[in-house]
């Protein structure tokens, strides 16, 4: 290919994209680019000419992608693709149950539609799904390739490890999958999940085949050097078998439910201690700060039911709404998904333990703050949880915020606040003497330029809007 001189300067390899040599992602000048080998190019050409590609991109289910004529300096690529950038990268260990379920359904739908046109997906990693707000979008265009005669579904095992097994774990055992996935980037293996399941669970949908039998076959053939793929092809394996498996998996996954029960915060919106007047004044305070200008990225830490994230979203391209309670995040996601919202990305996460760098060299999956610096951060009704519940000293927390160079809207609940008193009551008398309004305001003023303060009528909550010094 004769290409014009490139405008692209120093492409840097995406630290999470190196496993598939045929198709690797680079970033340059804020653009997301993909370098293809000859084999990768064959896959792309097959996809680009398909009905699936045009339709799925139009439906927002597949990332918008085009082949570009600019070469990547220093790289001998057969072709270069450019992808639309997703607003904020997130990982499956930050998603609530319903998000992983919907991501799984997207993965299966795309595979089924690909098979229709004699294409397949070479893998089935949940990391290939990202989000436009509450809408899942499949980003790994390099996964698609032509289906070869007699070929089985290579990604089936990975689908089980990174989609199905985490969902089964949470749906059937009530065990949250997020900590496990955060600790194991390859996912949850059939043999591991098998050990967690009881005899009663064996009767539940999907368990016998995808977990028990899968675990047994995996153990039995672990050392096998048999050419099963060749055997399958010679024995007449057909794509109809993959389609049937995919359809059954779609039915199974669609029926999976997680019933979180009543968690501490899932009822918060209904039982909040604010008077109606105070709640309205708090909203007005947030609106005033959020509406000052259009922000690219807003973080809402401790988003709860998402009331303030919604206000911020009116004046921001993307709001990342974070809460440690997976039940409230799950509910917020389902509301947003029903509304077709694309401006708010709900994520499960604890402010005092934000997602770290993981994987190869600790850079394959990036820490939360390395994925996009917020222009504005809301910390409403969260400081007392950080300082008293999480034992993170207030000045430390403010240091972290100041390091993000973000504007902030903070709410300080005083020691007299019933919720603060409840947290303090669990500690030894006199604990957290530094948690008080005066030292907080001093620490805040050392790090931020205070713009506005308002004390709510209840007398135990104070709001601050501030910008970095």
């Amino acid at each position, binding site marked *: 290919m004769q290409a014009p001189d490139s405008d692209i300067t120093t492409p840097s390899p995406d630290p999470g994209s190196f*496993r*598939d*040599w*045929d198709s690797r992602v680079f970033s340059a000048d804020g653009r997301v680019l993909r370098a293809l080998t000859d*084999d990768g190019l064959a896959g792309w050409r097959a996809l680009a000419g398909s009905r699936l590609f045009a339709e799925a991109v139009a439906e927002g289910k597949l990332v918008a992608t085009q082949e570009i004529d600019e070469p990547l300096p220093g790289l001998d690529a057969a072709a270069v693709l450019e992808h639309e950038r997703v607003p904020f990268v997130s990982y499956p260990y930050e998603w609530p149950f319903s998000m992983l379920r919907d991501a799984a359904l997207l993965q299966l739908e795309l595979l089924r539609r690909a098979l229709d046109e004699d294409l397949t997906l*070479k*893998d089935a990693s949940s990391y290939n799904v990202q989000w436009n707000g509450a809408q899942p979008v499949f980003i790994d265009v390099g996964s698609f390739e032509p289906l*070869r005669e007699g070929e*089985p*579904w*290579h*990604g*089936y*095992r*990975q689908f*089980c490890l990174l989609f199905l097994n985490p969902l089964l774990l949470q749906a059937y055992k009530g065990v949250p999958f997020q900590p496990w996935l955060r600790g194991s980037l390859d996912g949850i293996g059939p043999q591991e999940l098998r050990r967690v399941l009881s005899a009663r669970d064996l009767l539940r949908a999907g368990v016998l*085949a995808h977990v028990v*039998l*899968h675990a*047994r*076959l*995996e*153990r*039995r*053939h*672990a050392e*096998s*050097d*048999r050419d*099963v*793929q*060749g*055997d*399958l*092809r*010679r*024995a*007449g*394996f057909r794509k*109809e*078998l*993959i389609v*049937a*498996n995919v359809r*059954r998996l779609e039915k199974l996954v669609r029926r999976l439910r997680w019933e979180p029960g009543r968690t501490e915060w899932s009822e918060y919106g209904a039982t909040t201690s604010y008077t109606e007047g105070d709640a309205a004044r708090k909203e007005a305070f947030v609106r005033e700060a959020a509406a000052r200008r259009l922000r690219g990225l807003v973080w809402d830490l401790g988003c709860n039911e998402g009331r303030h994230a919604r206000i911020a979203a009116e004046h921001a391209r993307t709001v990342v709404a974070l809460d440690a309670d997976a039940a409230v995040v799950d509910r917020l996601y389902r509301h947003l998904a029903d509304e077709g919202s694309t401006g708010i990305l709900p994520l499960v996460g604890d402010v005092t333990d934000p997602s770290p760098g993981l994987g190869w060299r600790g850079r394959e999956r990036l820490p939360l703050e390395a994925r996009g610096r917020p222009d504005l951060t809301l910390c409403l009704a969260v400081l007392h949880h950080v300082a008293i519940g999480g034992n993170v000293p207030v000045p430390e927390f403010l240091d972290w915020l100041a390091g993000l160079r973000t504007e902030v809207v903070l709410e300080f609940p005083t020691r007299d606040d019933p919720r603060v008193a409840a947290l303090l009551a669990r500690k030894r008398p006199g604990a957290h003497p530094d948690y008080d309004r005066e030292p907080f305001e001093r620490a805040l003023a050392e790090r931020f330029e205070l713009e506005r303060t308002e004390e709510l009528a209840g007398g135990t909550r104070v709001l601050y809007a501030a910008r970095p010094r």
Partner: protein
Amino acid sequence: MRFAYLDPGTGSLILQVILGGLAAAAIFLKMFWHRLLVALRIRKPLPPERSPDTTAS
């Protein structure tokens, strides 16, 4: 055959045939015909260096 970068897992591939149910019964029989005959004592097991899987019953 060109291999994908991902190891599909031998057990996981065999499971896909089992999941195929009746439609895949013929494929399953073809793949395991020899072992079936051995199990029914119609045919003798292959010598160990040729046996694809030593855990065969």
